[in-house]
């Protein structure tokens, strides 16, 4: 007996069958993973279950009884809750207000928050969520926001919980905590559907795993009996090589030179300095990685380098020219490319087509004549990128980027930034939300950039990525660089110590590498 059964679901979008006759069975109390390439149709299938899309064919059963879900309200009544790939919270409401939003209890028109507060506190305690429910959403971290989304489902007593790529936005520590929460919830009788691209996570928590490929259900397997390699082969339809072969770096001249970058904290945050005396160089032909736990100044550093925010003091030089106060466009024209951390915020104009998004920084250069956009040239250019980077969407170059899967949106940005042939590529979490095949592809692209003599600055939270791809690693902790190490001479454990602030080196740019003794702090 299945708590939820989706039978023969078909859902089409213009130009594409996102779900093609898919049957998915969820057992009570299980954690059921959903695996598939970018654009395979995972989010779509879950959106059908949650009532956001209506399937053209097929039906949904709960406990063997057919149910009709025409909107999230219906889903909620049936005990189905969902944490979306991109959260849906009201930013100037408090945590508590967000949780009760839509199911408020009122007494003669007056909000009754007391009971709600008690219930939320109890739930939060039960799952060990360390969360201040009176803070506004905009003042809490992404990890915390996700807990709010989870509390929302629990508050509504949902028993079927859908998680759409919950780990893509989390730090490794937060992922650990989430995995534990999911297990606890399953143990308490909840049934969980869990979308992820990370096979390790599936191995860690899931009981069964269903694999989708290009809208079709390939099969459902028992996770304990299936190897990671088998699962990824089911997903891509071919063997995936998870290791990179990487040639020795051929290091050239200094491209980017950063000296004594400082950024004071803002009053509304903790008030700590966000960047403290940051100095480093990035050379042609190397991939320099900035590692660290989220929120230790990486974002501020990237904003300073790309010009998205001004900084207080220090210098940035690009090929010997001072660009500390240069405008964003100037920096772009000097050869800086930027794959931003938040693709929806900075990376894309979601209401523009795929083609229009590929010319975001170059529309005024090659794609216009006397002020008029050269439409055909733009479309041709987009077609070329789609081909080269295997970007999948319903209607090709004229697809609205809003209608694209998360991973393919990321590919659009990557394609645009790499194809501009930059001298320095600043890539922030470039593989966030991508499937293994795409990650492999992007890593190869980063290496290709390096091998063609470009400088690459990679900011990543994922240790695996940091260790595999980089030639040199800087670790940031509380706005400072606390280590400058060679991935060949450092272990995962050591990196972890640096990242958590338990260990630090005296780092100086002018010496070859590490100078002074290692200091261990409690």
């Amino acid at each position, binding site marked *: 007996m299945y708590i939820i059964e989706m039978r023969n679901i078909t859902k089409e979008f*213009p130009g594409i069958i996102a779900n093609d006759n898919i049957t998915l069975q969820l057992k009570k109390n299980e954690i059921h993973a959903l695996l598939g390439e970018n654009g395979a149709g995972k989010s779509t299938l879950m959106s059908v279950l949650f009532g956001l*899309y*209506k*399937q*053209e*064919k097929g039906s949904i059963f709960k406990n063997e009884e057919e149910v009709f879900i*025409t*909107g999230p309200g219906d889903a909620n009544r049936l005990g189905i809750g969902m944490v979306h790939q991109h959260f849906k919270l009201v930013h100037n409401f408090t945590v508590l207000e967000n949780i009760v939003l839509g199911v408020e209890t009122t007494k003669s028109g007056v909000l009754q928050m007391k009971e709600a507060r008690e219930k939320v506190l109890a739930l939060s305690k039960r799952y060990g969520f360390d969360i201040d429910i009176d803070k506004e959403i905009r003042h809490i971290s992404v990890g915390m926001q996700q807990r709010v989304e989870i509390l929302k489902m629990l508050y509504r007593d949902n028993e079927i919980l859908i998680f759409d790529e919950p780990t893509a936005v989390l730090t490794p520590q937060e992922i650990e905590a989430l995995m534990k929460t999911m297990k606890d919830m399953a143990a308490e009788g909840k049934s969980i559907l869990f979308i992820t691209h990370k096979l390790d996570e599936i191995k860690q928590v899931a009981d069964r795993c269903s694999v989708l490929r290009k809208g079709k259900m390939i099969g459902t397997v028992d996770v304990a009996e299936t190897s990671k390699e088998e699962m990824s082969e089911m997903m891509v339809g071919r063997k995936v090589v998870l290791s990179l072969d990487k040639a020795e770096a051929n290091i050239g001249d200094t491209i980017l030179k950063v000296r004594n970058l400082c950024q004071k904290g803002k009053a509304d945050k903790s008030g700590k300095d966000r960047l403290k005396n940051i100095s480093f160089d990035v050379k042609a032909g190397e991939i320099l990685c900035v590692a660290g736990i989220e929120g230790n100044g990486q974002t501020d550093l990237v904003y300073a380098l*790309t010009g*998205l925010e001004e900084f207080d003091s220090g210098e940035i030089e690009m090929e010997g020219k001072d660009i500390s106060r240069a*405008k*964003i*466009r*100037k920096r*772009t024209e000097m050869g800086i490319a*930027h794959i*931003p951390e938040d693709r929806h*915020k*900075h*990376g*894309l*104009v*979601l*209401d*523009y087509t795929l083609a*229009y998004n590929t010319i*975001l*920084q170059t*529309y*005024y250069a090659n*794609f*216009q004549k006397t*002020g*008029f*956009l050269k*439409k055909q040239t733009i479309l041709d250019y987009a077609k070329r990128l789609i081909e080269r980077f295997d970007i999948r969407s319903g209607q090709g170059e004229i697809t609205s980027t809003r209608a694209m899967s998360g991973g393919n949106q990321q590919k659009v940005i990557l394609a645009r930034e790499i194809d501009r042939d930059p001298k320095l590529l600043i890539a922030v979490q470039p593989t966030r939300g991508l499937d293994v095949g795409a990650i492999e592809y992007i890593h190869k692209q980063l290496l290709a950039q390096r091998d063609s003599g470009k400088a690459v600055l990679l900011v990543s939270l994922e240790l695996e990525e940091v260790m595999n791809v980089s030639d040199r690693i800087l670790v940031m902790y509380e706005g400072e660089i606390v280590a400058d190490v060679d991935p060949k001479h450092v272990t995962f454990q050591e990196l972890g110590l640096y990242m958590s602030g338990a260990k630090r080196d005296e780092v100086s740019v002018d010496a070859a590498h590490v100078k002074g003794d290692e200091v261990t702090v409690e």
Partner: protein
Amino acid sequence: MNRSGFLSFLSSLLVIVIGLLFGLIVLIVSNAEQAFPAARTIATFGFSSMRRVGDVMLHGTPIILTGLSVAFAFKTGLFNIGASGQFMFGGFVAIYIGVEATFLPPWLRILTCIVAAALAGAIWGAIPGLLKAYRNVHEVISSIMTNYIGMFIVVYLIQSFVFDQGRGTSTRLPTESTLPRLGFQNIFREPFFATYRESHVNLGIVLAIAIAILVYVILEKTTFGYELKACGFNPDAAKYAGINQKRSIVFSMMISGALAGTAGALNFMVDTGLSMGVVETLAMEGFTGISVAFLGMNHPIGIIFSGLFVSYIKLGGAQLQPHFSIEMVETVLAIIIYFCAFVFVVKSMLGRGLSKFGRKDKQEGGGAV
């Protein structure tokens, strides 16, 4: 037409129907006996003769332009409530030049009137734009203020420079300073005893349509439009792309103001003897522009039609007077017109409703196979 276009069209029609029904209810409540004849008048009067068709176009001209004004700003993510003040400035400047610059040949004078009115509107629109760009003052607040300031200044200017003591309004424009009728009077007229009564529709409607097309071209085909819309859709991404947002905001408000200013010029440059009063009320054309823009889904071509529609309804409404008080008529028209502003709400509801419908449909079909 694609799905979204179709939905837009459908929801525009739907808000019109809902607005009309609500209007009807108010009519019934206020005078049940006359309500249905009145509704019929509203619905048919604009087509009752060729002259009326001409009048619909004549009165549609300014609100098509204020509609374009609101829509243009909207595409850049700005809400220009200030069309009313910009409209009055444009109107005043056109009247002033039309009255004073009699040394210019008529065609040059007319051209000067329109261009100067557009400039005046642009300058008045630039103020909220600059405040937004450089002082982060919300454009809604500042453009409401520029409306009132503009109105008082214009009243003062009229009284100081082009005041007709006898009529208590602005000086009447000499006929050579009004827009030529281009022979339209031979088409848009109705027989009246042995002669004809003509509509005063003129060059204005042609200009309004041409400007709508121009706005469409700017927004959809140029790099400038690409920048403006990027700022409107996603300011963060526009910043990331190196687009100068401050410049975009100021330019967008200036163009929006220029469109409203032009509306003012075309509104008053008619040979009906229309002149600007010195009453201290805001010009309604500016606010009607909001409804026109929304009803036309902020699409320049859609706005041509929504402007004409609103004009049509107003013309019909104006005939109800003996049976309904002027306040009642205004209320009914306001209900119909402001209902149009709900078009986006209706569109999203319709979008959901339709897909539900589609599903049931297909399911039954699927069962039969």
